[in-house]
C-alpha cells in the first residue's frame, strides 16, 4: 500500500506559483482560499529559497487529534481527508496544524467561519468518487482516476514531488547525491515523524 507524501525541493522551486494556480483551477477552490501557497524566504537577498506549502498529510495528524467532531480521517494511502458535512468550523485544526493548511471561507468568529477547506491530495472527500457532490465540496478526485496531484504534475522544475513516499524519497535521494548537498526535505520531520511521544 502506498503512503502518499509531498516533498518540495527548495533548491529547485522558483516561486512561479503554478502549483497554487493549478490547484485553484483544478478544484475550483473558492475565492480567498489557497490550498497550496508558496513561501519565499530571504526574498531578494542571497540565499533566497522558495517552498511550496500545503497539507502534508501527516502521520499522527494534529488536526485529526483535535477535531471536536472527529470529521477528519486518514485514508489507507495516508491521505488526510475531512467531511464538510460534519465540520462545525470551530478552527481547532487550524490552531493545531504546523503547515497552516486548514482554511475557512470566512474570517468570521468562532461560529461563522464556514466549513474548513484544505488540500485533499487530489483525492476528493468521503462522498462517492467523481460525484457532483464530491467535486463541489472537495474538488476533483484525481487519485481515483489513477493520477497524482496536479500541483506536482504541473511543477515546471519538478521541485514539488507527490506520490508514494518511498518513490518520492528515492528521487530526492538521487538528487541529493548528484548535487552533493541537500537542503533536507523540509517539513518531513514535522509531518512524518513520531511526535509528542506517540506515533
Amino acid at each position: 500500500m502506498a503512503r502518499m507524501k509531498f516533498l518540495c525541493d527548495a533548491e529547485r522551486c522558483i516561486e512561479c506559483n503554478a502549483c497554487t494556480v493549478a490547484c485553484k483551477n483544478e478544484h475550483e477552490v473558492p475565492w480567498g482560499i489557497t490550498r497550496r501557497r508558496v513561501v519565499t524566504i530571504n526574498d531578494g537577498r542571497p540565499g533566497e529559497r522558495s517552498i511550496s506549502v500545503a497539507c502534508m498529510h501527516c502521520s499522527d495528524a494534529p488536526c485529526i487529534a483535535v477535531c471536536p467532531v472527529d470529521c477528519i480521517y486518514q485514508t489507507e494511502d495516508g491521505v488526510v481527508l475531512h467531511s464538510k458535512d460534519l465540520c462545525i468550523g470551530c478552527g481547532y485544526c487550524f490552531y493545531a496544524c504546523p503547515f497552516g493548511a486548514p482554511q475557512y471561507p470566512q474570517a468570521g468568529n468562532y461560529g461563522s467561519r464556514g466549513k474548513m477547506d484544505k488540500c485533499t491530495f487530489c483525492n476528493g472527500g468521503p462522498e462517492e468518487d467523481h460525484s457532483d457532490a464530491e467535486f463541489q465540496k472537495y474538488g476533483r478526485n484525481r487519485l481515483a482516476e489513477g493520477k497524482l496531484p496536479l500541483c506536482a504534475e504541473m511543477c515546471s522544475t519538478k521541485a514539488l514531488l507527490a506520490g508514494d513516499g518511498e518513490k518520492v524519497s528515492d528521487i530526492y535521494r538521487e538528487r541529493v547525491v548528484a548535487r552533493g548537498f541537500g537542503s533536507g526535505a523540509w517539513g518531513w520531520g514535522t509531518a512524518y515523524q513520531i511526535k509528542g511521544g506517540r506515533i
Partner: protein
Amino acid sequence: MEYWLKRILAAAVASLLIAGVGGVDLSDALIGPAAAQEKGNVPGKSLGTSSDSDLWRALRRGYRSDVPYRDKQKGVAIQSEGENWRNMRNGPLSVYGGWGLGGVIAVLAVFFLLRGRIRVEKGMSGRTVERFNGVERFAHWLTATSFIVLGLTGLNILYGRYVILPVIGPEAFSTLTLAGKYAHNFVSFAFMIGIVMIAVLWLRQNIPDRHDLAWVAKGGGMFTKGTHVSAKKFNAGQKVIFWAVILGGISISFSGLVLMFPFTIEAFGPSFALLNIFGFDLPTDLTSMQEMQLFQLWHALMGLVMIALIIAHIYIGTLGMVGAFDAMGSGQVDENWAREHHDLWLAELEPGAKSAGPSEAGDD
C-alpha cells in the same frame, strides 16, 4: 539623416556588446539542452551559496516570511506550537480536567454518605423571611442557566467526541455540536450580563470580615452536627463562590470573547511581560496564533475549574442542605434556617427581635 545613421550605428554596437558579454553564458547552456538537469542536478547548476542550516532552522522554528497574501500568517511555513497546544489540550487538560470533575463528584458523594442532608436542627418554624428579592433571583438564575448551557456545550467540545459521538453517531453528534457552538456563542452574553448584575448586587456583602475567619476555622459547621457559625448575609464559603464566579467569570468571558473574535486581541504577551517583572522568564514575543492557543487552553481550564466549583455549589444548595434552595426558589427562607446559618443577617433584618445565636441553636 546623419542623426539617424548615428543612432543605428550606436544600436548595432550596443547589441554586439551585449551579445558578446552574454554569449559566454549562452553557449555554455546551449552545448546540451538536457545537461543542466542530468543526474538530478539543479537546473542552472547552482550549487548553493552557503550552509543553509541557519535558514532551515529558522524555518523550522516558525520564521515568518513576507507573502503576497492578505493573511500574513500564511508566511509561516511551520508553526510547531500547534503541536504543543494539541498535546496540552488532548493530554493534561483533558485528563486532569476529567479527574478533577470526577473527583469533585466523588468527594460530594462521600460527604453525602457520611453527613447526609444538613437539616434545620430546630425544625421549620413556619415563619419565613425574604432572603433574595426578585432582582437578585433573576440575576442568579440568569447566570446559573446560562452557565449550565455554557458548561455542557463546552464539555461537549472537549469530551463529546469520546463520550457522546460513539453513542449517537457522527451526523447527529455534528448537528448537536454545531447547535452547541452557536448556543455557546450567544448564551455567553447572557452569562456576562448575569455576572455584572451579581457583582453589582452582592459585592458589598461579600467583602471579607472577621466572621469569616471563625467560619473557616470551624469548617463552616458542615462536618459536625450541631455546630453553627455566625455569619452575615453570606458566609465565608459563599464568599469564596462569589469571588470565584466574579473573577473567574470575568476571566472566562474575556478569553471567550478573544476566541469568538479570533486573531484580534493579544493579551498573553503583555501579561507575560508583566509577570517577568516578578522574576518569571516567559516569552513575550508571541504570534497571534500562539495567543489563540493559549487563550483556548486558559478558557478551557477556567471552564473546568468553574464547573467543578459550581457542582459543589449546586450540591449544597439543593441536595446537601434542607431549606437552602428556598433562598433562590421562592426567595423566602425559614426563620430557623436563617437563624442557624445566617444569624447576624437575621438579626440585622429584625432589629427588635431577640437574636437566637448559633450557640443556642447548637445547644442540646
